[in-house]
């Protein structure tokens, strides 16, 4: 019951309380760009990460801070996973070789 009340209170907050600020959007984009640069250095940029990055930049230019922050966050998460994948595969590929 307490949880329901808490959830109701949270949902009744004005939209502005959820909105990302310009600074937050810019910080999210900077983090995404940095992570994507690492993925690129490993030769492993993901198509949807690039698309999310592009969408984040466009949203930032259009001053849609919420969308920019959300897209940058997606790009960041995917870029980090790409880096992790490349590091795993540095040795794991050998296990797949036909012998």
């Amino acid at each position, binding site marked *: 019951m307490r949880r329901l009340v808490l959830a109701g209170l949270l949902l009744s907050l004005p939209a502005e309380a959820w909105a990302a600020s310009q600074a937050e959007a810019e910080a999210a984009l900077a983090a995404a760009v940095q992570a994507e640069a690492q993925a690129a250095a490993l030769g*492993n940029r993901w198509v949807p990460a690039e698309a999310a990055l592009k969408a984040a930049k466009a949203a930032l230019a259009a001053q849609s801070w919420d969308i920019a922050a959300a897209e940058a966050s997606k790009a960041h998460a995917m870029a980090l996973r790409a880096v992790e994948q490349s590091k795993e595969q540095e040795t794991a590929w050998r296990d797949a070789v*036909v012998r």
Partner: protein
Amino acid sequence: MKPRAAFPRCAALTLAACLLGAAGPAPRADLASAAADQKAFQDHFKSRFPEVPFADFANGPYAVNAAMRKQWEEIMQFPPYDFALDEGKTAFETKFANGKSYADCFANGGIGVRQDFPYFDTKSGEVITLDLAINRCREANGEKPLPYQTGMMASLTAYMAETSRGKPFAIKIPDDPRALAAYEAGKKYFYTRRGQLNFSCATCHVGAAGQRMRGDILAPAMGILAAFPIYRSDWGSMGTIDRRFTSCSAQMRSEPLPPQDVAYRNLEYFLSYMGNGVPISGPGTRP
């Protein structure tokens, strides 16, 4: 008693081998391992598809799926690459502005040489594909390079492949550490998972070869390049190996590399070497 007697003989042989090794050239372990890779690779596909004649691997998915083969045989009554073949032959025989032609750039006048590409050029230290050789020929004769994925490049390589039909892939790895490094890099690329779907080339073309991926039957990796360039119904036009590599990358949701990137050339070198002995069948058609 016998095992004890065998030990000193074994030790003596080992010592002799060490001494010989110290005095003579180093063993060509890497070349041997490339040859062993090739044997294991080919044995894998032969045992996986025992009913498929070796040469038939040149026909990709049609070699391993009877229903698709039947459709393909009907398509081949009027091959959709015929226009490209005619265009390629005309372009190949047309002289450049300086009076020279493609024939001046290739061994045997460029006729029946497809099976030797790609090769490792020990002078420049890089893998040279047929497509790259065509553009270098053009540039050396004052012509602009052609786009790599479709259009005239596909037509020219279609004609050159057609003059090599039936000739088995004969890719060589020279005894040069750079050639072995290129081969190894191609091998690593082939087996490395990448992209959002976490696929490697091998995921589809080794592990799932012959199986269905949505509407397609996945071609076995052995001899997979023998039919290129191809007319692909999905594209509605001709495409080169570069077009296939870049579209495969995108399908794995991995950003494609530029055409003729060193990584793609090394991949082509590895894959072609794995297909040694499979006859050239290009140009081909695919769904």
